[in-house]
């Protein structure tokens, strides 16, 4: 399987398409305002001086094409016995060496424009002290697969295994045999689309749109926007008739968008495993094939928001080293994801990923009710403010009074959700308000532990325990100090005595 050290190679010229798309995506993500301004400016330019604008456009296009070709010429790679080297950059040249054994996550992606030519894009994520991602777009599929196998094998060879070395070597040579662990039907993916966090951002989007709408009305005359609206629609009730359907429409649009994005990204979702390797196929247009080794998964997160709770589903994300984001329908994030799991599927996946852990039979230690005091004070002061406004007559008083028990109930509910459990090697943290989410990891994966207490906590013998993994930090708040110390001692012991591979 080993390839001998080869010389610098170029990728397919289709690299230019990848590069252009990447550039456009980055431009749209980082400064959409500037892009819109440029488009508007361009439009004005075209309408004033079409000939000049045409010439400028041709010049710009030529310049762009020139740059793309230069970028392609400069982008070269070299495969060595234990590493892959890259050089790239038109103006500033960059040279990278990725050690196979340091590779965390490796993906083969087949976007339509590469697939029709039998090419693929290899995305490699490596972890140093700062993790970085490298793309090799436009290499033959067989080459991509070969490189991936080589990288995975290198990782395996490094680890001390329970068996002898010869046996381990034999294992790397054997052809992997994958069995399917989980598939997702369109229905599951649609549920994921509906219950992904994007919907909750909908509120933010709506409020900003409303802000723009009211701003629109303001500059026209000095009266406020509402008056202007009322001038347009004489009946005050009519404003509600316009605004409410508009909001509903925006929300429906967001949901539809989210569902479409989820379907495009996760169509044909199939998670397979072979011993300690997980392979994930998904994608409608761009076929993605993601591979992760079991021991590189640092922690699991079973997420559930209000909408997911309604469907009785949870989304599982497996995090690796570095601050990678959760895998979301809009294409962000790169953790290994298992979307919209039913209770039974959650159970099966967790017992597969954390052998010996039974999620249904965990006994959670509750958090001290004092944990809710800061939150309670915050919401109480807001409520008090509202009450004062209501007493002054600016707001109806009855809803405000009803709000008090609702707030109290929500705070209590949030407190009841908090908890932690130590089961064997595993630490499980629970939280949430409407939904109920879990974070699971093995204690030995910790990197650093910190126990701290504020002066008020010291008076009542409480403390906070922070556990930092290479994939993120977690806190057990308001734990009795003695208990926190015992848990810390236990975790330190696990970390120091574990010989399991963990990076």
């Amino acid at each position: 399987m080993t390839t001998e050290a080869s010389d610098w190679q170029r990728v397919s010229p289709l690299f230019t398409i990848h590069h252009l798309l990447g550039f456009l995506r980055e431009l749209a993500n980082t400064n959409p305002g500037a892009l819109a301004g440029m488009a508007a400016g361009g439009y004005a330019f075209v309408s004033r001086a079409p000939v000049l604008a045409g010439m400028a456009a041709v010049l710009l296009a030529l310049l762009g094409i020139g740059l793309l070709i230069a970028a392609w010429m400069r982008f070269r790679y070299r495969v060595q016995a234990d590493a892959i080297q890259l050089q790239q950059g038109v103006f500033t040249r960059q040279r990278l060496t990725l050690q196979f054994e340091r590779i965390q996550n490796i993906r083969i992606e087949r976007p339509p424009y590469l697939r029709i030519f039998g090419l693929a894009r290899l995305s490699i994520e490596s972890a140093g002290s700062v993790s970085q991602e490298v793309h090799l777009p436009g290499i033959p599929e067989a080459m991509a697969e070969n490189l991936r196998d080589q990288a995975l094998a290198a990782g395996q060879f490094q680890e001390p295994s329970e068996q002898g070395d010869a046996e381990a070597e034999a294992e790397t040579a054997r052809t992997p045999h994958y069995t399917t662990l989980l598939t997702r039907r369109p229905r599951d993916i649609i549920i994921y689309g509906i219950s992904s966090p994007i919907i909750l951002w909908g509120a933010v989007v709506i409020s900003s749109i409303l802000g723009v709408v009211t701003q629109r009305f303001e500059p026209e005359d000095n009266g406020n926007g509402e008056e202007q609206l009322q001038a347009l629609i004489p009946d005050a009730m009519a404003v509600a008739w316009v605004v409410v359907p508009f909001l509903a429409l925006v929300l429906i649009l967001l949901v539809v968008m989210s569902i479409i994005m989820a379907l495009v990204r996760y169509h044909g979702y199939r998670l397979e495993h072979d011993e300690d390797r997980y392979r994930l196929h998904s994608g409608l247009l761009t076929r993605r094939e993601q591979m992760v080794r079991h021991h590189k998964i640092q922690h699991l997160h079973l997420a559930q928001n209000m909408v997911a709770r309604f469907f009785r589903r949870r989304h599982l994300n497996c995090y690796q080293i570095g601050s990678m984001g959760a895998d979301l329908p809009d294409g962000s994030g790169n953790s290994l994801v298992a979307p919209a799991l039913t209770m039974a599927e959650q159970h099966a996946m967790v017992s597969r990923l954390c052998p010996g852990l039974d999620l249904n039979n965990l006994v959670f230690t509750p958090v001290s009710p004092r944990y809710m005091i800061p939150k309670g004070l915050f919401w109480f002061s807001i409520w008090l403010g509202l009450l004062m406004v209501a007493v002054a007559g600016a707001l109806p008083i009855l809803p405000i009074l009803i709000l008090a028990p609702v707030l109290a109930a929500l705070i209590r509910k949030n407190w009841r959700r908090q908890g932690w459990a130590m089961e064997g090697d595993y630490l499980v943290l629970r939280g949430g308000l409407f939904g109920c989410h879990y974070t699971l990891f093995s204690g030995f994966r910790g990197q650093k532990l910190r126990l701290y207490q504020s002066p008020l906590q010291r008076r009542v013998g409480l403390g906070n325990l922070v556990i930092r993994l290479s994939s993120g930090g977690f806190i057990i708040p308001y734990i009795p100090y003695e208990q926190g110390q015992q848990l810390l001692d236990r975790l330190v012991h696990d970390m120091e005595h574990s010989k399991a591979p963990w990076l």
Partner: protein
Amino acid sequence: MFTNHTVLPEELPSISEVPWQKLDPRYPRMVLLHGLGFWLAAGAVGLALTLNAILPLTLTGLAVLWSLLLIPSLMSWPAARVKRYAIREHDVLFHEGLLWKSTTVVPRNRIQHIETENGPLERWYGLVTLKCYGAGGHQADLVIPGLEQHLGQRLRQYLLNEAEDEEDRTAELPDDN
């Protein structure tokens, strides 16, 4: 051979009985000097801004504000005095905090790299800061300031050796169960 002895909670080495080491006695002095330097500089800038009517403050107001700023600068001295560290067989510990007390533990087999650092003021006092980095983070997991130079270098070397051994996996952990 894989063994998995049961360890009773009482038998675990506890952080409540750690032999803590104090930082170098020059460290609190250095921190105080540093704080007072900043305090004086802030006062000078504040005075200049007030005299030129850029800051809307009277001279008395400025004096009150300036003396209030003295409190955190002075507090840095006792805060520096309570900081302490410990190096056990398998981990490094650091304790700090006057009011908000905190204890940090980093196992030695989780340390990825270590640096020592000294700024101009630290060089003047002959002190160094030791920083331990773990995997996956951008910040140091553990920072021990105020170590005497040679001690700092020795500690760094000592911890580095352990980390390398871990990486090579040549040295087995002593079986102390």
